[in-house]
């Protein structure tokens, strides 16, 4: 652990890399979360209105 901290202190760009990766992973999992929520809503609308799609130019599950 101490060796890793010394390595990071001498090569500070890897700290930037770790932070950038954490930010990207945060954004990525948020996009996955939003995607799943939208899919759930689309399925709800399809269940409520099964005929909605035909005239609506292929919105859900063409």
């Amino acid at each position, binding site marked *: 652990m101490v060796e890793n901290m010394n390595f990071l202190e001498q*090569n500070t*760009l*890897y700290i*930037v*890399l770790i932070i*950038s*990766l954490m930010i*990207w*992973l945060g954004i*990525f999992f948020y*996009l*996955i979360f*939003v*995607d799943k929520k*939208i*899919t759930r*809503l*689309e399925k709800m*609308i399809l269940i409520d*209105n099964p005929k*909605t799609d035909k005239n*609506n*130019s*292929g*919105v859900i*599950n*063409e």
Partner: protein
Amino acid sequence: MKGLIIASSVILGIIIGLIPNLIKEKPFWWKYLIGVLFILNLVLILSPVLVSDHSYANYIAKTEIEEPITLELKDYTINSARDTLIISTINYPIINNSNYDVTTKELIEVKFNKQNKHFSIIGTKDYSIIPISYPLILELKERIKIMVLHVPTAWISVLAYLLSMIYSVMYLRKRDYKYDIYAHSAAGVGVMFTILATVTGMIWAKFNWGAYWNWDPRQTSIFMLLIIYFAYFGLRSAIENSETRARLSSVYLIIAFTTVPFFVFILPRISSGLHPGAAGEGTAGPVLGGGAEMLNHNLLITFGYSLFCFTLLFFWILNLKIRTELLNKKW
């Protein structure tokens, strides 16, 4: 070669980005592929060391700049009597005063001594977790890596505006509201990427040019582009009738896109300014210009790869935006 790599990155990104199509949920493997590709992108951008090529070393010595640079030991011999490295393509001797062991190393850190006209070895280096290097330019140093993130966001916004123009034309031809939704969504995502390009550029400008905003032609032109597309959203919100709104918005987006190539690619190159590629520099910039300079082979491939990743990310965000707008419409 440069154009081929950049063009193929964008085209491949568009082809994969449209799997299965623009509005259906993306497959599981597609989403996680983007996650992995972007992680690799960040590692590729940030971890390589910066190395000067030998012609840059000669330039440093000729201009007597006494700043450390890293050199790759290619084709060298050791003059053991004087502990001097001779690299055939570097016109000045490299003196190993501090007896660094260079026999197993590939990279050395050197500093030019203008009094004695030689390079002194001040350390040795290893390649990072990835055994590639990017060019060291003393005015930029590590900031050169920002280019691989900043430029793709600007180019992706052009792609977004192009898509918004195409869907606007399709709406005017077919009068199907879905095209209006696609155009509106693409314009929204385009504005988001334009803001990202502007903000990342401002941060870079602060460290390179001393101020966040310099009214450089490229900064001014991207600001004009933002105003044009912000006005689009103002126009949409001002019209209640949906058919009129869709029609006028479509016409506006078509006309707005005619300004995009001028503001993004032409105006910054015909005006003198701080950005690389401005008038009077003799090149079209590090990305579109013909010379190697800022963009060596490794950095070019990383740039193309980053452009590919950003294109995929754009299509995912656009997909989410369109599906949200369509859900809103249904509700």
